[in-house]
Every structure is written in structure tokens, then in C-alpha cells.
């Protein structure tokens, strides 16, 4: 009889998935609020800039950024660890015929690491472009604030940027379409009765976030000529 193996919770495959689930939940919530708030770009430059100023000048921004960065690092770290384990579990062994056959699985679920990696690159470039991008100033309602609206206009005027954003936002929606449902599974909140509902909500969530975001650069690109 072999000795009993003990393993700390967070170092088990199940524990790492729990971390993926909780950090994924935080980011899924964040991207939704980010998308909804930025919809103000459709309203007016003043509304958009005032909203941005309100968020960045409040005290809540520091703990919020801390939690987001920490979640981001944990999500990526656990993903790397899990993917490495998964690849070594499968080994170099491949089937001559694809394993799905008629028993299909969703494309998004099989490719989380691939779009996840692209989203990682996107988030870094996105923060570099906007948060640490050119600092324009403007005055709205007598308050001097950053003119993010002007930067957004300049960035999305470029077809290259527009294309890169559209690609990444579609991938983000794809990632969420599987990820949001998997949160429930990893947290252990799922049964046979709710599983189909959770799967539908997950796809809907990905669709809403992706479409909501996509509208914004498209709006900028196609309305600039009219201004």
C-alpha cells in the first residue's frame, strides 16, 4: 500500500481551476462594466470625458486596479500551469483521427489557451495605447480633465487599429462564451437542470460584451468623416 499523498488545495488541479473561476468572474464583471460605461462615447465627448475623469479621480480606482492586476496575474499564472500539466498529460500522443467525431464539443472550449494568449497581448497593448497614451487636456463643466475622447478618435481613425480591435474583441467574446459558463462549473455551482441555462447565458454574455465593445470603434471610424 502506497503512502497517502497530500497536496495543498491551491496546488491541486481542482484548486487552480477555482482560482481561474474566481479571477475570471472578476474580469468578466469588469469587462461588462467597462463596455457599458464606454457606451457614453455614443452620447458626447463631454459625457465620455467626465465619466473617465470621475472613475480615475476617485479613491476606488486604486483598490480596483490592484484587484484587477492581481486577478489578471493569477488567471494567467494558473492558466500557464494548467496548460503545461494538460499538455504533459496528453503527452506527445496524438490520435490519427480527430477525437471529436460525432461527439462534438464547442470550438471555444478547446481553444481557450489560444484566444487567452491573444487577449493577454491585447490587454497589454490596450493599456499602453490608452492609459499610458498621449495625454490631451480639456475642460468640461469648469473642470480640467484628460481628453480621452480625442485620443480615442485619433486611434480608431486608423484602419490597422480598428482591425486589431475588432479581431481581439471577437476573440474576447469567444473566450467569455465558454469562460463564463465554466466559472459555474469550477465553483461547483452547476447541476444537470441548470447546465443548459448556464451554457446559454454564457454565450449570450460573450455576445453582449463583444457586440457592445465593437459598436464603439466602428462608430468612431464611420462617423468621423461627418464631423
Amino acid at each position: 500500500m502506497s503512502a497517502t499523498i497530500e497536496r495543498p488545495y491551491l496546488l491541486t488541479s481542482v484548486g487552480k481551476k477555482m482560482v481561474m473561476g474566481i479571477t475570471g468572474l472578476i474580469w468578466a464583471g469588469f469587462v461588462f462594466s467597462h463596455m457599458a460605461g464606454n457606451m457614453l462615447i455614443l452620447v458626447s465627448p463631454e459625457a465620455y470625458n467626465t465619466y473617465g475623469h470621475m472613475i480615475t479621480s476617485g479613491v476606488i480606482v486604486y483598490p480596483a486596479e490592484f484587484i484587477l492586476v492581481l486577478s489578471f496575474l493569477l488567471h494567467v499564472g494558473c492558466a500557464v500551469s494548467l496548460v503545461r500539466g494538460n499538455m504533459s498529460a496528453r503527452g506527445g500522443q496524438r490520435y490519427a483521427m480527430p477525437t471529436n467525431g460525432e461527439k462534438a464539443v464547442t470550438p471555444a472550449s478547446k481553444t481557450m489557451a489560444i484566444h487567452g494568449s491573444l487577449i493577454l497581448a491585447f490587454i497589454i497593448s490596450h493599456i499602453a495605447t490608452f492609459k499610458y497614451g498621449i495625454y490631451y487636456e480639456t475642460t468640461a463643466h469648469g473642470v480640467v480633465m484628460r481628453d480621452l475622447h480625442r485620443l480615442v478618435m485619433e486611434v480608431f481613425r486608423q484602419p490597422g487599429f480598428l482591425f486589431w480591435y475588432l479581431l481581439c474583441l471577437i476573440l474576447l467574446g469567444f473566450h467569455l462564451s465558454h469562460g463564463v459558463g465554466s466559472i459555474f462549473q469550477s465553483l461547483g455551482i452547476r447541476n444537470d437542470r441548470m447546465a443548459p441555462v448556464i451554457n446559454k447565458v454564457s454565450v449570450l454574455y460573450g455576445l453582449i460584451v463583444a457586440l457592445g465593445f465593437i459598436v464603439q470603434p466602428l462608430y468612431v471610424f464611420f462617423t468621423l468623416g461627418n464631423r
Partner: protein
Amino acid sequence: MAGSNSKKINITLKVWRQKSAKEAGQFMTYEMKEVSTDASFLEALDQLNEKLITKGEDPVTFDHDCREGICGTCGFMINGNAHGPQKSTTVCQLHMRTFSDGETLTIEPWRAQAFPVIKDLMVDRSAFDRIISSGGFVSVDTGNAQDANCLPVSKPEADAAFESAACIGCGACVASCKNASAMLFVSAKVSHLALLPQGQVERNERVDRMVAQMDEEGFGACSTTGACTAACPKDISLSNIAKLNRELLFSTLLRREAAEGDGV
């Protein structure tokens, strides 16, 4: 036979041949003439082996035991499908009528780092045995079989436990998973025992040990693709994995407290 729709079909089999774990394997092609559509897939392989033996060649090695779909011994991939294309079916219960005349079938063993090939289509699944011996048992003395209504188990609980207990440990879940994860197997065993009163005594230790052993054996994690449950001949639900995740979390959070309270 009167009333039988039996036909004879010709099938081309591309079978994975591998002498041992250490040697490299390859596909060998065999033409099967006049195979009865009433034959099970394993019976068709028996016929192939009889021919190979007659010719003095090495027969194809494959695992099998009950041939009634209840023991979990058989299993390999047919055209990328664990246990073949028919849902909820072990390969011993798959019949040649599933296939059409002239079809080519590619047959491969389960492939996973934790399931090394022993020979041809036979793989070493002792990793599953070690997971079971790490915690998949009850050691309380339950005595003789009691009257059913004396056991404090509700009908829905009993049904759910039975559904999880239906897992025959064949390994199709591991074979079909892109991560070669054993979560469906482990979760079925953990769920089954966690749902019954006899399983309560070791409930927390069981899930800790079985998950640790599962990771130790080199199985992957769950990506919730659902490939396992689609391939499972016993339709073990993906919800078992959610329950496994829940069990391990609660065990981690509550274990010490329970141990002190019990005075163990």
C-alpha cells in the same frame, strides 16, 4: 435465421500495432471480408485474430471481459470515437451493423501519458486502481444487507448516487479529453460515495486523497469541453465534476473543524 436482417459486409481495418510500451507502434491494414452485421465489434476482431493465428501471425491484443457492457474492461478508439460512434455504448456492445459496406475503420488504443500502451490496443489503467485505493472505498462496517426502507436514503439521492455509480472505469473520458483528464471518473466515484450515508465517515479525506492521487498520476485538469461525457458509455454527467470541485473546496474549508469535533 428467420426474421434476421443479417447482412455480410466488407470492412477495412487500420489497427494500431505496438509490441510493447517501449517500442514504437504503427498502423497495419487488414481487409475483413464477409463480416456479419450481427457480430459485435469484438467478435469481428476475434475473427481477424483467428485468421492471423492461422497464418502464424501475432493476434491483435485488446482488453475484454464481460462483453455485456458492464465491466469496463474493453475500450479503444474507432475513427476517433471512444468505444465507436454509437452513443452510450461500450465497444463490446457495438455491432457491425453500425457500419456500412466498404468502410475503413481506424482503431487506436486510449492515448494518455497516464495510460501507457501494454500491447496493441491494450493500455495500462492501473492509475485508476491507485486512485480508487487512495480513497474510493468505505471502511465502516455496514453489516448485512438491510431492508431497503431502513436505510435513510431518499429516492432522489439514491437515484443520483446510482447514476454516478454507473461509471465502469473504462477510461473513455481520459482518452477523449484533450487534457487527458480523469476528472469525470474521479468525480463519479466521489459523488457516488458522498451521496450515501455509508460514505460520510471518510467523505473529506476521500476527496482530498483521490484528487491528490489523480494529479500525482499525471492526468490533466478539466477544461469543461464536455468531450468526456459525450464519449462516456454510461452517460456520466459533467455535473459530477462540479460536485467534485464543491466537495474538495468544502473539505479544505471544513476538514480540521470536523476532525476536532469528532474527536478523531
